[in-house]
């Protein structure tokens, strides 16, 4: 540090420029991804593309399948995740809860492909015996539950204790306080966290490879393979035919619109929280 003042100032400015450069470099891939997806995908999208099955050149089954998966997964994962979070936040001052918190941390960083193997073994080989939307939804809820549990705990922790005490002082029970006072006060955070978690699983692909497999036709039942947007992109992108590759870009545009709309929408609604 024994350099002259001018040199130290120069180093300081250089450092500023380098940091700015890092930000620019990181934004380039994002902009390129958005540009390519729009440029190559937009020309594909029309009414037939969105509604026809794969053999007729559309991605209708994939859109339908993704919506079914999101619905099933949310139905399984959100209630379990929120109740887990409630336990961790409201009764979580013990060893049992802190163990569960650590398990949750491990689960949120779980390699998603592993979850696919588990759902395959349990459902596809075990319970149902065929590829099935249920297996896909189960795999995705393994990913969803820990994320929802964590965001629920975080939002409940933001509710001031005086709110709980006010309710308890009026003679309400703990369970009543939690359900009617604490959860509603944390509503904003809960909605935000849950929607972001849903956005995350909407784009998950790896666990679906072994569970719903992909299908050219619309939903055929809970004991049949099903399509979904990420699977359709993966299957199409690997084909040599330019038409199918173009279809992959079109599907990517729909998927990214779904995911980004959820993300940006949520952030706009809850702008204050993120400041």
């Amino acid at each position, binding site marked *: *540090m024994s350099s002259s003042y001018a040199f*130290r100032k120069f180093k*300081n400015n250089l*450092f500023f420029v380098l*940091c*700015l450069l*890092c*930000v620019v470099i*990181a*934004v380039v891939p*994002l902009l*390129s*991804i958005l540009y*390519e997806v729009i440029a190559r995908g937009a020309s594909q999208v029309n009414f037939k593309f969105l509604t026809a099955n794969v053999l007729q050149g559309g991605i209708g089954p994939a859109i339908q399948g993704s919506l079914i998966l999101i619905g099933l997964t949310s139905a399984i994962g959100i209630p*379990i995740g929120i*109740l*887990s979070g*409630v*336990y961790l936040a409201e*009764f979580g001052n013990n060893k049992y809860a802190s163990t*569960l918190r*650590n*398990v*949750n941390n*491990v*689960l949120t*960083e*779980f*390699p998603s*492909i*592993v*979850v*696919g*193997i*588990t759902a395959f*073994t*349990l459902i596809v080989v075990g319970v149902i015996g065929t590829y099935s939307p249920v297996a896909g939804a189960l795999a995705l809820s*393994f990913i969803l*539950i*820990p994320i929802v*549990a964590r965001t629920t705990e975080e939002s409940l*922790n933001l509710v001031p204790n005086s709110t709980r005490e006010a309710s308890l002082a009026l003679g309400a029970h703990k*369970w009543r306080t939690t359900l009617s006072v604490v959860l509603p006060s944390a509503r904003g955070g809960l909605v935000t966290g849950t929607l972001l978690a849903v956005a995350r699983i909407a*784009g*998950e*692909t*790896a666990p679906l*490879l*072994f569970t719903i497999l992909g299908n050219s036709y619309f939903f055929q039942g809970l004991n049949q393979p099903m399509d979904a947007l*990420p699977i359709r*992109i*993966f299957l199409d*992108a690997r084909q040599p035919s330019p038409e199918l*590759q173009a279809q992959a870009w079109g599907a990517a545009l729909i998927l*990214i619109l779904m*995911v980004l709309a959820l*993300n*940006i929408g949520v*952030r706009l609604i809850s702008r204050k929280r*993120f400041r």
Partner: protein
Amino acid sequence: MTKKITGDNVFKIAAAIIAASAAAILALNAYVLITGSTLVLQKEGIGFLLGRNWNPVEGRESFGVLPYVLGTLVTSGIALLIGVPLSLGIAIFLVEMSPRSVRVPLSYLVELLAAVPSIIYGLWGLFVLRFWTQNYIETPVNKYLGWIPIFSGTPFGLDIFTAGIILSIMIIPTVASVSREVINAVPNSIREGAYSIGATKWEVIRYWVLSYGRSGIFGAIILGLGRAVGETMAVTMVIGNAIGPNAMPFSLFRPGQTLASLIANGFIESTTPIEKSAYVGAGLVLLAISIVINVAAHLLVTRVFKVKGGAVE
């Protein structure tokens, strides 16, 4: 009175049971992977970790995951080498330098990087990034430095290097946002003390802020490593999917394979029980690596936040 107490207890116990679902999920995954891989582990023993062959032909079966473990480590290593300096630069810029009006939109943009699904990174990597790395980096480097073993081969764009690059982009949001929180948690008195003895901003950050948050930033890096190790789809689409001894990552510009991409490519088409078991075994190895990494990362990150005395969270 007893009835009222029961109501609360019932709620508490029900919530506790539901909360145990996390432990159940972990146990279920571990159980399935361990029972599923016993077949191959009994046959190969320690050779499963050290072997290089992947031969599912009946009667000559031989399975070893060494090339894929190394492939996972090399691609993640490249991701850290490139991604970590970028992420730290971003975190420092956002906390210490940017005016407030720029900070919020910029953090949105960086967080959007995390929102893009990995399959779309893969699609972009396969049709766009691949040609960038092939034309602007791999071909020139291979032409002049091709005599160095790690740059040898015929650059094709679908190889270990491109996989590393795409991973480095994907870990940026994780590493940048955790380091940003760590830097934010460094008390202002530290900065003020440093400024008051005449340090420049660079010196304050380099000698005070970064060393104060050292273990937290280290934790952020390891979290990024965890993400890179488990990433599947984007890597599967750009790594070239070599198999067996060819997948040993001796050159950056040759096709390789990671544990995750191996499973994504082969698991569904595997036919014999022992082959299926070998893929499950690869999953078990991947899971073990990822759990070790994440536990280490969380220990490091929480240590910093505890030191802060609750400054964050």
